[in-house]
C-alpha cells in the first residue's frame, strides 16, 4: 500500500491568535480555519450560506481537490445555476476543527508555529466537539462581517453542525437544512466508529500515534477503517446493483487468483476506496473527528429535552432523510422533526426515496436536488433576498 504522506499544501486560511476555549476546558490557541468561498457576498451581506462537510470531507466543496485532482465533493449541488446557486448565494465551506486540510488539528504544530518546535499535536490534540467546530466557523463568519447567515446546510456530520449552528446561534441562522443526520450519534454508529479506530490502533505503523517520528503512516489501519465505514455509507441494494456477486476474472480458470485475492468486484472497489483515502487523510484527524461525532447528543446538552435548544427559534428547518440510509435512518430524522414540532418551529421534513444508502446525499437524486433548490428559494422569498 502506498504510504505517501499528504503533501503540505497552502490552503486559504484565517488565523485567530486569541484561539478558542474548547468545551473540554482546554484553551486552543492559535486557531486556524481553512475555507473556500464561492459566489459573491451581496452588499447587504445577507446571501451567505455555510455548507458544513462530513467526516472525511473538506472545504473543497465545488472546485478541484488539490490532492486528488477530483471535482469538489458537492460540485453537483453547488455552482452557478445549481440547487445551491452561486449566482445567487455566497457559499462558504470550512475545514472542521480537528481536520487535516488546513484547519487546526492533530497535524498542526503544537506550538502554533511560533518559537518552540514544530512537533505536531498528534494524539495530544484536545478532544473537540461538534459545537467547537461550529464556534470556530462562527469566528470566520464574524470576520467576514456577516451578521446573519441566510442558510446553513450539511449532510451526515455536516448535518450535526447545522443543528448545532441553529441551536447555538439561533438568531444568526435564517434557514437550516440538516440532511441524512441525527440529533445524536447512535450506539450503532459509535460502535462502527470504534471498529474504525481499533483498525488504526492495530496497525504496526501506528506507533502510538507518533507515526510522523518514524516517517510512517498507519495506512493499512486507516484504509481498513475507511473500507468498513464505506460499507455503512451504502446499502445492500446499492452494493447488489453495482457489484452483485460479480468476480473480477475467472478465479477457477487457467490463471487462478489466490484464495484471498481480489476475487469479487466489491472487494476490489473497497480496497480502492481504502487505499485512495490514506493519500488525503490523517489518521489522528480521523480519530479526533470520529470522537467528536460520538460525543454529539443535542438533547443531553439541554437536559435530555431535544426540543429545548429550539424553543422560540425563528429558523426555518428542512430535514431530509433517505429511505435506504441505515446509518442515519428516517426514524432519527423523524425524532428531530417532532422535537422541532414541540418547539413550534417551522419545519419541512422529506424522506427521499433512494436505494443508495447514506451516501445518497452526495449522489444524483433528482428529488433531493429539487428539494434543496425549492427549500432555499422558498426561504429566500421569506427572507426577502435576491
Amino acid at each position, binding site marked *: 500500500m502506498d504510504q505517501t504522506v499528504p503533501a503540505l499544501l497552502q490552503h486559504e486560511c484565517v488565523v485567530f491568535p486569541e484561539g478558542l476555549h474548547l468545551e473540554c476546558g482546554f484553551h486552543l490557541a492559535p486557531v486556524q480555519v481553512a475555507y473556500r468561498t464561492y459566489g459573491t457576498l451581496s452588499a447587504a451581506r445577507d446571501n451567505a450560506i455555510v455548507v458544513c462537510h462530513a467526516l472525511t470531507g473538506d472545504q473543497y466543496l465545488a472546485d478541484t481537490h488539490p490532492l486528488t485532482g477530483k471535482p469538489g465533493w458537492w460540485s453537483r449541488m453547488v455552482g452557478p445555476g445549481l440547487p445551491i446557486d452561486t449566482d445567487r448565494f455566497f457559499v462558504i465551506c470550512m475545514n472542521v476543527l480537528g481536520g487535516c486540510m488546513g484547519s487546526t488539528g492533530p497535524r498542526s504544530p503544537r506550538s502554533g508555529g511560533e518559537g518552540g518546535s514544530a512537533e505536531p499535536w498528534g494524539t495530544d490534540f484536545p478532544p473537540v466537539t461538534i459545537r467547537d467546530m461550529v464556534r470556530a466557523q462562527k469566528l470566520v463568519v464574524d470576520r467576514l462581517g456577516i451578521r446573519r447567515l441566510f442558510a446553513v446546510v450539511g449532510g451526515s456530520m455536516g448535518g450535526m453542525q447545522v443543528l448545532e449552528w441553529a441551536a447555538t446561534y439561533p438568531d444568526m441562522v435564517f434557514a437550516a437544512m440538516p440532511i441524512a443526520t441525527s440529533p445524536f450519534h447512535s450506539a450503532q454508529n459509535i460502535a462502527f466508529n470504534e471498529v474504525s479506530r481499533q483498525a488504526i490502533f492495530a496497525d504496526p505503523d501506528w506507533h502510538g500515534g507518533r507515526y510522523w517520528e518514524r516517517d510512517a503512516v498507519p495506512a493499512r489501519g486507516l484504509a481498513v477503517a475507511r473500507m468498513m465505514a464505506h460499507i455503512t455509507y451504502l446499502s445492500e441494494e446499492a452494493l447488489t446493483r453495482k457489484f452483485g456477486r460479480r468476480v473480477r476474472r475467472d478465479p477457477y480458470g487457467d490463471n487462478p487468483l489466490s484464495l484471498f485475492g481480489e476475487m469479487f468486484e466489491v472487494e476490489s472497489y473497497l480496497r480502492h476506496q481504502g487505499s485512495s483515502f490514506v493519500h488525503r487523510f490523517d489518521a489522528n484527524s480521523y480519530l479526533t473527528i470520529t470522537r467528536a461525532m460520538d460525543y454529539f447528543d443535542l438533547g443531553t446538552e439541554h437536559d435530555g429535552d431535544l426540543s429545548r435548544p429550539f424553543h422560540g427559534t425563528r429558523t*426555518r428547518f428542512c430535514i431530509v432523510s433517505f429511505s435506504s440510509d441505515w446509518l442515519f435512518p428516517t426514524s432519527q430524522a423523524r425524532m428531530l422533526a417532532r422535537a422541532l414540532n414541540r418547539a413550534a418551529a417551522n419545519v419541512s421534513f422529506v424522506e427521499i426515496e433512494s436505494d443508495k444508502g447514506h451516501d445518497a446525499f452526495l449522489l444524483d437524486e433528482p428529488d433531493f436536488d429539487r428539494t434543496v433548490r425549492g*427549500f432555499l428559494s422558498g426561504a429566500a422569498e421569506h427572507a426577502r433576498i435576491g
Partner: protein
Amino acid sequence: MRLDQRLIAEMIQPGTRVLDIGSGDGALLDYLFRTRGCDAQGIEIDMQEVTRSVAHGLPVMHGDADHDLAHYPQHAFDYVVLQRTLQAVERPREVLRQMLRIGRHAIVSFPNFGHWQLRLKLLTSGRMPMTAVWNTPWYETPNIHPCTILDFLMLCREEGYVVEEWMAVDEDGERAPWRRSIRLANLFGEQALFLLRRRGG
C-alpha cells in the same frame, strides 16, 4: 385551488399562523402565504406530495393527523385546517381535540354521509351507496368513519366546541343554498365546512 379551499381561506384572518393537515399539493398553503400573508405550514401523508410542496418552497412535513399532532405545543397555531379527511382518520374525536389544543380555531371539512342520494341508495338497493363523493367500495375505502352533518354537530356539542361558522357546499366546492337550515343542509349538502373554537377559548 378548489372552491371549497377558497372558502376555507376566507375564514382565515390575514397574517396568522396556520397548520394545514393533509396539505396535498400545497395549493392552500401557497394561497395563504401569497395572498393573506399567513405563516402557513403543512402536514401531508403522501411523500410525493411532500417532496413536490417542499420543492415549491412550501414548508410541509411528512406525517398524518392521527400520529403527529400530539407533538405540537398548545396554541402553536391560530388555525388548524383538516380538509376532507376527518372521515378517514383512525380517531376523529381525538384528532379534533388535538386540533383545538394546538390551534385556537379548527377548520374542518368532510363529506356528508346524510346526503339524500346516499339515503335513497341504501334504502332502495339495500347495498352500501356509491356516489361521485363516496366512490370506493366498502372493502377498500379509506373512509372508515363517515358521519352526517348532524352527527358532527352532536359531537361538537358533547366536546364543548363553539361553531363559529358553518356551510354546506357541493362536490365542486360551490356554496350550497341551504346554509340557514342544518336539516336541509344535512339532506342536500355534499360537503360540510365548519369553523370551530373551544368554549371560552
